[in-house]
């Protein structure tokens, strides 16, 4: 591999890993948001039922 091959390999791995981490973070974030909404709605439903 030539010098530019090493440079591009390093840049590719770094930015690829950062993009993958960002996507995984976004997925976990959305999942948590959805679960929180579900929990809040079910709690609100329980309170309404008690009334």
């Amino acid at each position, binding site marked *: 591999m030539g*010098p530019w091959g*090493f*440079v591009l*390999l390093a*840049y590719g*791995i*770094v930015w690829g890993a950062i993009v993958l981490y960002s996507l995984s973070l976004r997925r976990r974030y959305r999942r948590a948001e959805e*679960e929180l909404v579900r929990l809040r709605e079910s709690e609100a439903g329980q309170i309404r039922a008690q009334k």
Partner: protein
Amino acid sequence: MGEFSNSSGKRKGYLGALALIAILFGLYWGLLQAPADAFQGEVQRIMYLHIPSILTAYLSFFLVFVGSCLYLWKREKRDDILAYSAAEIGVLFTALTIVEGSIWGKPTWGVWWTWDARLTLTAILLLIFVGYLMLRSLIEEESRAAASAAVLGIIGFLDIPLIHMSVYWWRTLHQPPSILRPDKAPWENIHPAMLTALAINFVAFVLLYFYLLSHRFRLGEMLEEIRTRKLRRDT
């Protein structure tokens, strides 16, 4: 609350946009504008990733240290969430530093890896914080996991001064620092275009880091709220 979330979301959006602009500038300067190194040639361009990555990892583990100390002192959950979030992103940047160093090492030193003092201590730093993340998932009781991880986070941070000083204390293959030197200012040691590329990439990494940290911290807060609500529901 909704208003707060919206303004916080907007701030994160601006931070993300700023980080993206800085990254594009960094790529332009690092790959096209900065000259090739007189001795290392083009592979030296890997340093525009390698140095910002490790400095960002140090910053991250400093926040783990601060969050861990505050958590052990005050027992406030948000300090623990800060430490946990910073540890996760710190692991990413440390792993990337090792990979970049390895790719740079092959054409420069002739090997992908060597048991040099600085490299070994950096690998130990990575292992300590991978252990930190594993500890969090292995201990079920939340407050015990947070306290144990805080102690490990503080111990792990103490490896960083060792990494920095290792090139002075031991005869190593890794060269002494070019930026954080006690005897010379960076601009006396590095070509201005190279220093500019390094500075832009450092700013880009720090902006990106705070963008990721703000999202990871918010995720931590949401996970804590989910845990609390589930506990309340089940009792």
